[in-house]
């Protein structure tokens, strides 16, 4: 797993440069066309500056922007102990330095994502819908998947790729737009073979401006999909229980996934495509996520252990892709031939009471809205609204008097 992270860092850097070069080339041609001969320098500079600004912006404030965009609310151990415990368990299994921050989005669509550029400063976000529908083992599978994204530095990777993609799209966009409006070149030409050269340059620039965003987007999406498979594989290695994630994905797929607060920019980060209507099969090439049914089948076909090698085998079996095309797991992770046994299920799953879960969830939402709770000795949990005035109340079940602790 260590090597996987190193590999990921190297790949990020490589991709960074490739897309960066694309951006600069685009800038070169646009500069030439817009600003005349020797305009290429200005073009390059502008492209470079856009790139740097967007990178810095996303690197330093990416987290808070995303969290604010999604209307996520922070929770901790006292609000929802089970969720916190599940995350803490995965933190132990993955050897993270500290427990990621936990947030909840009050939306019924079940989904989850992780954010944060380093393991020290990361966050895991789930929707209220996810908490209501999944049992402990399934929840653990999803959390393990998200934490795998953090561990594999996917977030760093995808953020930079996203920024590059954004810069390329942005630059192409304004260039093409400027052509449309200003009708092209208004430069003074110092003759020579200028005319023809300018025309060629113009054509190349237009071609690039049209193709670059498309290519960059396809590249970005292909990488995003690969990352999802890798996170599935890592998740299973952490929990030792592929069925947990598999049935979680099934339950997720069975719902209308449209999340009010997700958009094109943030879609790639979720565990399931939040822009998908129920059942609609988005064409594979244009989706940030592989089809859920395929992911589930691969997980259920893992046999002989939950090491990366077994996941790779299952992937090749289900998708029929072998060799270079089917390589999901990098070679370094495949070297580990140790057989890791699949765990037996915990006693929790299957016995969860739906009503109980609903109560717990309602309580959570209440506590996030400043309700307070008091547990009567008879076992009943009494919910006190924020505007309740008074120092004691009567338990509705056993009719004891209960003192209410004074709020600070």
């Amino acid at each position, binding site marked *: 797993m*260590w090597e996987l992270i190193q590999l990921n860092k190297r790949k990020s850097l490589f991709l960074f440069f490739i897309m960066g070069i694309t951006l600069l080339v685009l800038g070169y041609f646009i500069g030439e066309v817009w600003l005349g001969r020797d305009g290429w320098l200005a073009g390059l500079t502008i492209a470079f500056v856009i790139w740097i600004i967007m990178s810095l912006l996303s690197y330093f404030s990416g987290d808070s922007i995303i969290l604010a965009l999604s209307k996520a609310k922070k929770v901790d151990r006292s609000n929802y*102990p089970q969720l916190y*415990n599940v995350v*803490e*368990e995965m933190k*132990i299994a993955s*050897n993270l330095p500290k427990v990621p921050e936990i947030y909840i989005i009050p939306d019924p669509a079940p989904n989850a994502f992780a954010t944060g550029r380093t393991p020290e400063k990361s966050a895991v976000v789930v929707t209220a819908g996810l908490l209501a529908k999944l049992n*402990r083992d399934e929840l653990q599978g999803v959390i393990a998947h998200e934490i795998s994204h953090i561990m594999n530095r996917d977030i760093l990777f995808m953020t930079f790729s996203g920024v590059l993609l954004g810069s390329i799209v942005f630059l192409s966009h304004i260039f093409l737009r400027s052509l449309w409006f200003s009708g092209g070149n208004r430069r003074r030409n110092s003759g020579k073979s200028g005319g023809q050269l300018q025309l060629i340059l113009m054509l190349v620039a237009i071609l690039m401006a049209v193709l670059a965003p498309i290519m960059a987007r396809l590249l970005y999406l292909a990488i995003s999909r690969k990352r999802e498979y890798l996170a599935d594989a890592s998740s299973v290695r952490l929990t030792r229980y592929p069925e947990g994630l598999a049935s979680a994905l099934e339950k997720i797929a069975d719902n209308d996934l449209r999340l009010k607060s997700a958009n094109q920019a943030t879609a790639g980060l979720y565990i399931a495509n939040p822009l998908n209507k129920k059942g609609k099969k988005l064409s594979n090439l244009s989706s940030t996520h592989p089809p859920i049914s395929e992911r589930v089948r691969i997980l259920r076909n893992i046999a002989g252990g939950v090491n990366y090698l077994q996941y790779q085998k299952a992937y090749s079996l289900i998708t029929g892709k072998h060799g270079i095309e089917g390589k999901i797991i990098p070679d370094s992770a495949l070297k580990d031939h140790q057989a890791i046994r699949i765990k037996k299920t915990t006693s929790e799953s299957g016995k969860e009471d739906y009503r109980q879960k609903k109560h717990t969830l309602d309580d959570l939402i209440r506590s996030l809205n400043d309700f307070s709770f008091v*547990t009567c000795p008879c*076992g009943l949990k009494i919910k006190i609204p924020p505007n309740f005035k008074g120092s004691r109340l009567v338990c509705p079940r056993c009719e004891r008097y209960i003192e209410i602790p004074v709020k600070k």
Partner: protein
Amino acid sequence: MIIPIIIIAVIIIGIFILIGIYNSLVQLRNRVQNAWSQIDVQLKRRHDLIPNLVETAKGYMKHERETLDSITQARSTAMHAQGIEAKSQAENALNGAMSKFFLVVENYPDLKANQNFLAVQEELTTTENKIAFSRQNYNDQVLFFNNKIQMFPSNIIASMFNFQLKEYFELEDQNERTVPKVDFS
């Protein structure tokens, strides 16, 4: 003139590589150490939770004195055990006592619905899981470390500085071998 410079350069690079390998060996070994102490933390946590569990259950399970007593006893033994062998045995015994307890709990729906009991049960579940995961993590770290010690070229540095192979942690799953008898009479 140029040859000595190249030789010196190669030596310097070689030294840096050596240092790099040594440092990563140390880092991996420290991770193993850290992972081991994690297991201990979780085991202690379980010890601390048990009195609470017994208290909560006592009111409801008036006729299950033996089961409750056996847990308390097992806990006490585990807390005072010294040495890996004894600790391992004691923790296994505690595992067994707790499984029996939870099997018996199935017969008391009132207890199962009690909020306090549910909270303690969740804490226990998570502690059990954490014990399992910290053990798993320990074994993972041992694997990474042992690999590094045994593979070329770090095995040379490892033997130079006397890095030893670490042992995996085996905690037998007691339940896989003995089927607890539950008396419904």
